[in-house]
């Protein structure tokens, strides 16, 4: 009973999502609204500003380097969270043991 109710609701959700594809602009068109002047500026001025060939590397380490700094903070926070739950390594001495 509960599983069939979940199936009906999810089928309705899938129908609504697939119906919204007809409202979106098609896949792979050059006149998409997402290809406005911001990627064009990055693609034209990447070599003059940074002298590198990989445009994505110059975006994440030069134009938007602050987001990469925030993301290394996220990695650091995940390590802190896991160590605080599980406890870091156990050091065994001869007759007593302590966590460090």
């Amino acid at each position, binding site marked *: 009973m509960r599983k069939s109710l979940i199936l009906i609701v999810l089928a309705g959700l899938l129908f609504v999502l697939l119906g919204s594809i007809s409202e979106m602009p098609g896949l792979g068109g050059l006149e998409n609204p997402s290809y406005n002047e911001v990627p064009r500026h990055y693609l034209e001025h990447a070599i003059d500003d940074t002298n590198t060939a990989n445009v994505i590397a110059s975006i*994440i380490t030069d134009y938007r380097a602050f987001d990469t700094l925030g993301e290394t903070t996220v990695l650091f926070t995940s390590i802190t969270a896991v160590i605080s739950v599980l406890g870091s390594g156990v050091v065994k001495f001869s007759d007593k043991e302590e966590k460090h």
Partner: protein
Amino acid sequence: MINFSAIVDNINYIGAFVLFVIGLYTVLTHPNLLKRVIGVNIMETSIFLFFVSIGYVRGAQAPIVVKLSGELIYVNPLPSAMILTGIVVAVSITAYALSLIIKLHESYGTIELDEILKKEGEGID
């Protein structure tokens, strides 16, 4: 029905939505905690696919610019650069959820959700 060429042209978006609903079904119905974490991972993968295929341009090249050519069309590099951060966030959430499952197993002895709720219900009485 809609014509076949519309389905085949937008196959990326359709695949992303179907994967999303499959992941949501896995989270809602299975009582095992590990399968729920896998369902959350499937949902995150579908969102990455949807976001990156927004920037696709047909017949264009990968965004590695060559210096001496003038009028080449490149794929939009901006959604790919944003998804790199999203992938790292997904990995962090999976690691934390798995560590919580380890602690739950130590405390209750099982990782099925209905058995944990039953043990929790008995402890209240």
